[in-house]
């Protein structure tokens, strides 16, 4: 053990925990299998029916293998590959997210540059921000009409706040010394914004972007459960209605993996713009 690096030891421990976890899970299932031998009556009334459906990891892995070997098949509205479903979700998340970024970052910049604007907008932001994005859904469905656009709107509205607030905060917090460096070199406002304020505030802005993408991915699942049709959220809900818990567990894992990848992407970007003072 002494020869392994910290990371190697941590990785080893992770694998160990995974294996033990899976074994316990696997071992726990036969006990429930017995529950399958309930009387017909019990089963009909639902006693233990949910439990009865919980699949052992071996089944989930088999499912994953089956699904991931052909992720993009399309056999009608209720039977699409996991890749297609996730694709829809990512498309909605990114559309709503980038629309939000397009507005939040320039707007946050302006708010951050002016103390008056910062103070004037703050109460609105503080009230709007804690609203659960799903609470907007009925209003969005009513005003926009289209369920697809409404889902994108919900993503838009939930990702805008962290980006807006962090951009404004980051810009407002840029050290005056750095701005003075720009001033003594006679840089104009646009050049100052791009060569000093933006790089100075970039780590804070990216933190906001990273928080936003995380929230957006959380929200899309719920939004798609409401809106239906396509997407990973709808898929989970649909499989639950089919009582196909193996698929439910598998898609839960996929949601986690995609969320992790999205976060890692922004983590990478964040590391690139972070600087030490």
């Amino acid at each position, binding site marked *: 053990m002494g020869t392994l690096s910290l990371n190697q030891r941590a990785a080893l421990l992770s694998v160990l925990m995974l294996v033990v976890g899976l074994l316990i899970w696997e071992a726990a299932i036969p006990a429930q299998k017995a529950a399958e031998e309930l009387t017909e009556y019990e089963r009909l009334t639902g006693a233990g029916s949910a439990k009865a459906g919980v699949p052992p990891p071996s089944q989930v892995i088999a499912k994953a293998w089956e699904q991931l070997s052909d992720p993009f098949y399309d056999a009608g509205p209720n039977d699409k590959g996991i890749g297609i479903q996730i694709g829809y979700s990512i498309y909605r998340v990114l559309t709503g997210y980038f629309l939000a970024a397009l507005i939040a970052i320039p707007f946050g910049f302006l708010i951050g540059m002016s103390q008056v604007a910062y103070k004037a907008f703050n109460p609105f932001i503080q009230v709007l921000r804690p609203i659960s994005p799903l609470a907007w859904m009925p209003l969005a469905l009513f005003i926009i009409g289209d369920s697809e656009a409404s889902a994108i709107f919900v993503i838009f509205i939930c990702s805008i706040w962290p980006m807006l607030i962090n951009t404004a905060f980051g810009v407002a917090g840029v050290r005056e010394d750095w701005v*003075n460096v720009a001033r003594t070199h006679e840089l104009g406002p646009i050049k100052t914004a791009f060569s000093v304020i933006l790089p100075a505030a970039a780590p804070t802005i990216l933190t906001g972007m990273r928080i936003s993408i995380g929230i957006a991915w959380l929200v899309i699942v719920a939004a798609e459960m409401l809106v239906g049709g396509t997407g990973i959220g709808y898929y989970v809900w649909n499989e639950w209605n089919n009582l196909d818990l193996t698929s439910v567990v598998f898609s839960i894992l996929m949601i986690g993996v995609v969320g992790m990848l999205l976060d890692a992407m922004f983590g990478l970007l964040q590391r690139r713009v972070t600087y030490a*003072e």
Partner: protein
Amino acid sequence: MKPYLSIEKLTQRFPDGNGGELTVFENASFGVEKGEFVVILGHSGCGKSTIMNILAGLADPTSGVVIMDGTQVKGPSLDRGVVFQNYSLLPWLTTLKNVTFGVKARHPEWTKQQVEDHAAKFLAMVGLEGDVIHRKPSQLSGGMRQRVSIARAFANHPKLLLLDEPFGALDALTRGTIQDELLKIWGQMEQTVFMITHDIDEAILLADRILLMTNGPNARVAESVEITIPRPRNRTEIVEHPNYYAIRNHLVQFLGKRSKELAGQPTEVGQTNAPETVRIDLTEPTEDPEDKRPALKAVNS
């Protein structure tokens, strides 16, 4: 004829936080000649940085004007390079890029290669060469950062160089090295330098003239002490010069005692507070002893 840099009846007031006003200094007037190295000494809070910010054009005075080379100072300019007290390097840029940042602003028509060569030349001048110039400021020592900041200012050939306690945070050894480098570069470039410091010995080593400020509020630039020690000066030899201790004592006296005694006298409307010139030179043959008495009096008072 007006001096190269002319500070005329400069007044700065700030709200004092209780609804009243705090007068930092009033009607301060002095001049700096072209190519001169002027150091300003005064206690903390007397308004040195405030004066420097006004000279840099980063702040506007309540009243009064600064005229440089015949034109009034309004806003910052590339002609007035500032070395900020805390270096003010941009931490996301490498050492080289911090200097090219300034060079690009000065010479927008230059090619990338020209800009980088010029920047590297000035970094080399302050002893920064090789791999070091591709490191970020956070990976440099305090003294190295200070030198980057000096290189950035010098690379732009500003007509006036403003230094706000540029060596304040450095250990004695590094400080000495950078002082020497500063003198060397200044000697080559014939620039006008206006510098703030708390260090009397540093002031005597570097300055042609030292401006002494009384304590605030209502501070005044009370005296202008000529440093009658020939250049090139050397840290170890300078102390043997006959004028050294006379000047030093005068400065210590001022900072220790008279800066307090002279402090806090509000001035009459329209009065011009020009500093009194003090010349201490024990090497001059004293033909007329009466001539020197006022200065010596100041030393002993």
